């Protein structure tokens, strides 16, 4: 379980996160939702220790993440950022291979190789494996980065808007993969989502943020109501059930 206690973050005196208190349940998909600039990415980066926060603590299974050695943390948490880029000019298979770094420090073992192959297959990258990253489409690149995090084989997977560039098929496949990982491999997923329909159909738990604060949080089925979402996004949102599937209407 990840526990966040009175977490605050400021960038040059502008408060970005204000007194966040949260528990992220283990073995579930937690959706982080909220309008642009709400602080979702910042919170995700604070949890993954990508940024150092000024106040408050994040604990992973009871231990403060600032006390965990970076390499050990990277074996427990994988982060896929919102803006993806790497400096070196590398191929897809090499990028995925870097996911094994926290485990083997670059001395790839046969086990690593098996996991890398599995990740490449899982995210539909076989045909792209020898392509350079800067010669891919946005969605293909996104999948390569997710495959890298998958290869990291961590208990926690933190994903910042992974559906951003994905087409319908790959978006749906990704959510199904995450579901499978949660259910069969005991993983926990924290995912920033903008599409409410994906949140409603796949997430177990919801954390809604606005202006650097948590507005509401709880099991998706209970807290994600038409009223609460309308207030959160300041946009009329209707929720209907069609053939047992909950979905949100907000496009017009």
């Amino acid at each position, binding site marked *: 379980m990840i526990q966040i206690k009175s977490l605050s973050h400021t960038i040059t005196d502008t408060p970005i996160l204000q007194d966040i208190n949260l528990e992220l349940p283990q073995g579930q998909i937690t959706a982080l939702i909220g309008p642009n600039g709400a602080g979702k990415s910042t919170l995700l980066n604070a949890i*993954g*220790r*990508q940024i150092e926060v000024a106040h408050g603590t994040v604990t992973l299974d009871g231990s403060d993440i600032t006390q965990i*050695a*970076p*390499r*050990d*943390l*990277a*074996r427990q948490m*994988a*982060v896929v*950022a919102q803006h993806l*880029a*790497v*400096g*070196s*000019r*590398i191929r897809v298979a*090499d990028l995925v291979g*870097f*996911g094994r*770094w*926290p485990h083997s*420090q*670059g*001395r790839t073992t046969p086990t690593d190789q098996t996991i890398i192959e599995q990740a490449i297959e899982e995210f539909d990258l076989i045909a792209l494996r020898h392509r350079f990253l*800067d010669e891919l489409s946005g969605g293909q690149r996104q999948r390569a980065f997710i495959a890298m995090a998958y290869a*990291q084989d961590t208990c926690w997977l933190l994903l910042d808007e992974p559906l951003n560039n994905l087409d319908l098929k790959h978006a749906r496949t990704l959510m199904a993969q995450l579901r499978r990982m949660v259910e069969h491999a005991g993983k926990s997923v924290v995912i920033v989502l903008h599409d409410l329909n994906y949140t409603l159909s796949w997430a177990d738990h919801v954390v809604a943020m606005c202006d650097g604060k948590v507005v509401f949080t709880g099991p998706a089925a209970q807290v994600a109501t038409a009223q609460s979402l309308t207030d959160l996004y300041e946009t009329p949102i209707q929720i209907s059930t069609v053939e047992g599937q909950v979905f949100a209407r907000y496009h017009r």
Partner: protein
Amino acid sequence: MADRRVFFLTFAVLTAAAVFLLWGNAWQSSYVLKLRAVKLGGLICVGLSVGIATVLFQTLSNNRVLTPSIMGFDALFLLMKTVVVFVSVGLSLPPVSAAAGFLADTAVMIAATLVVFVLVLRRTRQDIQLLILVGVIIGLLFRTLAGFLQRLLDPSEFAMVQADMFAQFGGIDAQALLIASLLLTLLFVWLWRSHRVLDVMALGRDPARALGLPFDQLQLQLLAAIAVLVSVSTALVGPLAFLGLLVTALTHSLMQSHHHALLLPGAGLIACLVLIAGQTLFERVLHLESSLAVVIEFCGGLLFLILLAKGKIK
């Protein structure tokens, strides 16, 4: 990761070194041989330093068209030399031995660059791109300051500084060379042991940190290593700007890899090859002793621009 290309390059460098040493029946005179050995050692030290420093700098900056000289390392060197002449003439200090001078040069360069790096990086939240920009500006400042001080010198004193303004491969001191090669050996051992870490660092700060690398600490260590390498080569022969660019461009097109296990030895060896072959050609065939640095800089710059225009550098 033994690679045929690295073996081939090593072989080429050894051949060039043998030709350089033994050209014109030099084995008959131990005096000539000794002179040439010192010069060869200098060329090798400088080649390895420049090649490897440029690879490291490009790894940190994620940019294949930059060299450490953009950060004003050579400007700092010039300023230091000018100040030394200025002060020692003013106080009429006795001249120091070449080895002591070399040690002092290197120490000052390393200390000064580290102070600048630590201060700037702390202020800019570890942003290397900003550090480079600050480096460019500081370099300009140093150049201007050095220029100003040089104007205050009289012509004979200015001649002492002028000798340091351009790279020169003659007159390398044997003792300074010994110190340099010890320093470099230690550094290369350390770098070789971290070549896999360098591969991850090349991904950039965020991806590297996400993989559990203490990036900021490593970045500072690498900058220190670059400062040592540039200082050694600059203190031995003087500033060289384009050699590094030329060498890394050639290395990337030969190695086609992001692995530092190939890039580091590749760049070091190619730089040695260029310097040794160039020196042999100029000294023995064309009898133009002093123009190697100028020609390398000119051809290096030109070839680099051609490679860039053809899209060979990515």
